[in-house]
């Protein structure tokens, strides 16, 4: 699971959960995969993501290179875009779990794939 995916994931479809965001990450195995850098792609992605959630997710994985705020004029800062590129797309949580902030429900991550399937008693019929 990439942190860009994590930035959009929520447990709000669970019965009794209202926001379910952000899910906290308990990582057991983190890998780095190389992804081709596309500065235009990263620049376009930055305004779409929840920056604070990305920062704290990265921090919880021991990645502290991101500033707390998006820098000015980021579109033209290759170094900054590269850092963001790395955090968004190259960090891959292979094993671990995601945790719902409201109920503590754990969603396991196996082989890099979060299991967001809900049981019948966790959904509205």
């Amino acid at each position, binding site marked *: 699971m990439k942190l860009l995916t994590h930035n959009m994931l929520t447990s709000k*479809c669970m019965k009794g959960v209202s926001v379910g965001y952000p899910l906290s990450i308990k990582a057991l195995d983190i890998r780095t995969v190389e992804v081709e850098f596309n500065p*235009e792609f990263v620049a*376009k*992605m930055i305004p779409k993501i929840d920056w604070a959630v990305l920062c704290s997710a990265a921090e919880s994985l021991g990645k502290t290179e991101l500033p707390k705020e998006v820098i000015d004029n980021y579109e033209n800062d290759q170094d900054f875009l590269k850092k963001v590129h790395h955090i968004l797309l190259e960090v891959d949580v292979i094993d671990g779990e995601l945790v719902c902030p409201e109920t503590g429900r754990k969603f396991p991550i196996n082989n890099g794939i979060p299991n967001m399937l809900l049981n019948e008693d966790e959904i509205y019929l």
Partner: protein
Amino acid sequence: MNQKCAKKMERKLNKLKHVVFKETGIVCSLNPTNNIVICNAGLVNGLSEETILEHFSVYGTLNNIVLVPGKSCSFVSYVELDMACKAYEALNGQLPIAQDNKPVYLLYAERLPQHSIDSRKVWDELPGGLVILDDFITENEEKLLLSLCCFDDSLVSQMKNRQVRHFGYEFRYDNNNVDKDKPLDEKIPKECDFLWKRLHENTDWKQFVPDQLTVNHYSLGQGIPHHVDTHSAFEDPIMSLSLNSAVVIAFKRDDRDICVKLPPRSLCIMSGETRYDWTHGIIPRKSDVVLSNTGSYTLLPRGIRVSFTFRKIRQGECNCQYTRNCDSYIRKNNSELQIAASEIERLHVIDVYENIALHFNETRNKPWPNVLEFVNSFDVGSVMLDVGCGNGKYLGKNKHVFDVGCDTSCALLDVCKKNGFETFLTNCLQLPFKDAVADGVISIAVIHHLASEERRLQAIEEMIRILKVDGRALIYVWAKDQHKNNEKTSYIKQDRKNRKSDTDVVVADENSEAPVSKGMTLPVHVNRTQFKHKDVLVPWRLKNQQNTVEDTFLRFYHVFEENELSDLCSKLENVEIERCYYDQGNWCVVLRKTLIKNS
């Protein structure tokens, strides 16, 4: 009237005579009869019985008023001929109640039209279970009750101008229900207690003691829309006391429309059929047209009316026999359906894909060109979700976007992971994405695996929820018709070409059925043939190394009729259908998310 004017009037009336005849088939003329036709004003111009009665009853007793649906003429009938003549002389070309306050033009009619809007209105009978007790309270008691609720601004909630106050529990008009867990501090006033003693002594309702009271204050011209009080919210009966002014209340069921006059100080008891199966409502107007028992119409002016509606909160669900308006029944029925549907999907979709995943992966590699074109139409930095991505044959095709796939099959997502695609496990009915994060969604050959229409709609709703406004979704579902435009789809054609390698065994029995869920069976489809049913089980034959059939799995499909997919999508308020087409034996739609249209 001078001669010139008279000529003009004659020409006008002559013209209108033909119009009326064309519209209603009724012959009219200047020869006096008891019936007057208003040639240029009717229901379509907003004319009401009330207005007619107000102006025409000045000249005598009316025994009928007929407003013809969809027409711009209307009829009144007097008890005596000379009344009609007087009215004619006074009002023709004078009375300004036609459109834009223009004067009405009148003629005499030989008869009244038969099928009037009023022929459905019934005055002389009550719906089953309705009891009206006249003078249930005295004038002094009425004063006492009215004094309990002074409607000053600080106490009342403004609701469609009608002022409302609640005791015991709040009755919510938005969902016609009460919050049973939130009783109000203010209970039904003690001053009402005498009502129940009187009720127990004088009627068959020996037990009824309410715990909820809604006081409605109707100003002049106000009414209440037709409704049934929510079954699960309240017991039977519901009682309403009318204070200060009379009103006509209407009860409707199917095409029946019964008008009932509620005099001041009367108690209206709605039970059984009336409480559960008939809607009731009050037309917003300043006076009611009442048909008296002598057959004549009179105008009953309304005053300020206050109603005290007493109800008893129901504990648990309703189990009445009037199922069509019964929310308890509908919920129970629906949840049973949903449980069966989810069981079918688990056994005949989710588990099957898990079992056939590897074989499925080998057979599903060629992407469809129209889907690729859609995927490639998204700009740099777009976010896309492939709902039901399977082995990921549409992932990674557009290198400029961030695309994520999701599916219920672990085995298929492992294939995606091997190819470097980002995915998560989920059911398409609950997408674990935030609202409005995706620019694009595709769902190819997925929602035809959902076993009820509600669930198919819910899946589309979820896709739209996660889309941004102006984001687009592409949905493919299997079509029932595999012979569109006289061209057999590859699904059918494969029969000859691939029979040897694909299906060594053809199900011999064309009418075979297989059990799916608690006593339910579904027809088993014969592979590579036209669909005979809409909800079917389609066999998947898993082969071993020797290419002989090892096992057969039955996958559930709901195959779609033409327009069925777009009709389903049209149920959503925030969706615009951009394109709808037939492709490779599938029905397909491109949807665009819009802001919710103003309702």
